[in-house]
């Protein structure tokens, strides 16, 4: 929900998603082009600064959104740092730090971090409908995108239904004990299944009534000064890649 909120309220909300997508892509390329961990870190910093300073996402919120991914990244890096050795001198299994691999591990971790910030940039500045528009530009299959449109919309409808059911169940002591909780959860699932079915039926009728015959077609959102912002994004992206390539 934090991501969602930021995507709709940030300063760059109205900027063309193509520009933002392009900048994010350039960030990813720069991350891979970076020759050293230091350069990759620099790229990550630039991307984070663009998100926080440029789009005006509050730093604390940025950290909270990034935290789960960062934890995951840290865990994977730690697991790279330590190697398991079987049948060494002691005979048993031993955990030891792979000192020789440290530079490569640092490189991988910093690169991942830079890629992460590039993705965060896109997801925190661009509402999902805009991202779907962007993917449509990239000629992704329509069926997939239609599914995304419907899923995104249904997510909110269903989460509301779940909240309402749980509130109603709690009001009648449905979660007062473990046994009751299990029962309530079961009936929640059953209820939800029926609702999903009914809602899909209703959506189908609504689509028919609005003359639909298969593919979901929508007007693409238009963005003022799209070409200007795309050139700016391309320029900034190119600088980033150049930095990554030029720095040792």
């Amino acid at each position, binding site marked *: 929900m934090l991501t*969602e909120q930021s995507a*709709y309220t940030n300063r760059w909300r109205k900027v063309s998603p193509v520009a933002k997508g392009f900048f994010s892509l350039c960030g990813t390329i720069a991350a891979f082009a970076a020759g050293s961990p230091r350069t990759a870190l620099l790229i990550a910093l630039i991307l984070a600064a663009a998100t926080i300073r440029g789009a005006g996402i509050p730093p604390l919120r940025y950290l909270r959104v990034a935290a789960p991914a960062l934890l995951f990244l840290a865990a994977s890096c730690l697991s790279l740092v330590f190697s398991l050795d079987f049948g060494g001198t002691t005979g048993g299994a031993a955990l030891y730090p792979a000192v020789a691999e440290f530079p490569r591990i640092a490189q991988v971790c910093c690169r991942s971090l830079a890629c992460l910030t590039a993705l965060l940039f896109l997801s925190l500045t661009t*509402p*999902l*409908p805009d991202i779907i528009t962007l993917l449509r530009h990239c000629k992704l299959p329509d069926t997939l995108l239609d599914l995304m*449109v*419907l899923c*995104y*919309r249904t997510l*909110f*409808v269903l989460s*509301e239904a779940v909240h309402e059911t749980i509130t109603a169940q709690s009001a009648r002591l449905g979660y007062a004990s473990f046994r009751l909780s299990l029962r309530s959860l079961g009936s929640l699932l059953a209820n939800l299944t029926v609702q999903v079915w*009914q*809602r899909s039926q*209703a*959506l189908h*009728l*609504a*689509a*028919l*009534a*609005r*003359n*639909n*015959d298969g593919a*979901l*077609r*929508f*007007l*693409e*959102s*238009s963005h003022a000064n799209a070409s200007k912002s795309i050139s700016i994004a391309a320029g900034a992206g190119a600088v980033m890649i150049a930095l990554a390539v030029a720095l040792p």
Partner: protein
Amino acid sequence: MSDSILKLEDVCYRYADGTRALDGCSLAIRRGARTAVLGANGAGKTTMFLHLNGILRPTAGQVLCEGTPLDYSRHGMRRLRSRVGMVFQNPDSQLFSASVREDISFGPMNLGLEEAAVRQRVEEALCAVGMADSADKPVHNLSYGQKKRVCIAGVLAMQPEIVVLDEPMAGLDAAMQDELTTILEKLHSGGMTIVVATHDLDFAYGWADESVVMDAGRLLAHGPPAEILRQKEVQSTLGAAPLVEEITRSLSLIGIDLRAKGYLPRSKKELLKAISDYAIQEGKP
């Protein structure tokens, strides 16, 4: 009737589980009129509406559009549905996209219009329902009433001749009901034919030119609300009488006969006006 735009002739409909939802309904919808379809829950209003734009097909009887029976082929349905717009009751089960503009564009895009034309229609529809300011909000952050207006805009953008609204007032507070009435009034003065299902007797009494009363799949009465909704039989079926009508009747019991003076108030405003006029005439300002 030559000026009827849609007509049901002895329409019966039976759902797959055997429920007889419509039982010999005959009804003509007059072009340009405001028709209110009244009936308790389960009377068959929604089922009848689904027949009006060909989503359901009668098990017996037929539906006519301008005198010709509906053509249920793909092509025929396309034509019919671009003329008859339908707004369903629950906004959450008819909004497809999380973006207001995108959702409104859905119908016009299905009509195969050019992008510029679609864009213009979307903006016009947004203005018609007073949602131009909220067009950039995601649908899930809108209030119930706003979602309802987006649904109406989605249908208006297809520029139909007839708009059919299923219980549009349900779940709206008094202020939002007034706003919606204003929107409907604007559409009516623009020449649109409007059909509304409701169980709000007072609204139907004040707003409609034609009222249709349904009970258990049957058509009980059809005619001007001032006649139909004053019938004892209709009132006992619906379980109530329009408040304005009851007050007028009660006043006549204590000697204030507004009807005799030629007043036939249909809304609260008209009633108050009639009473104050009456007072002035009687010399009691």
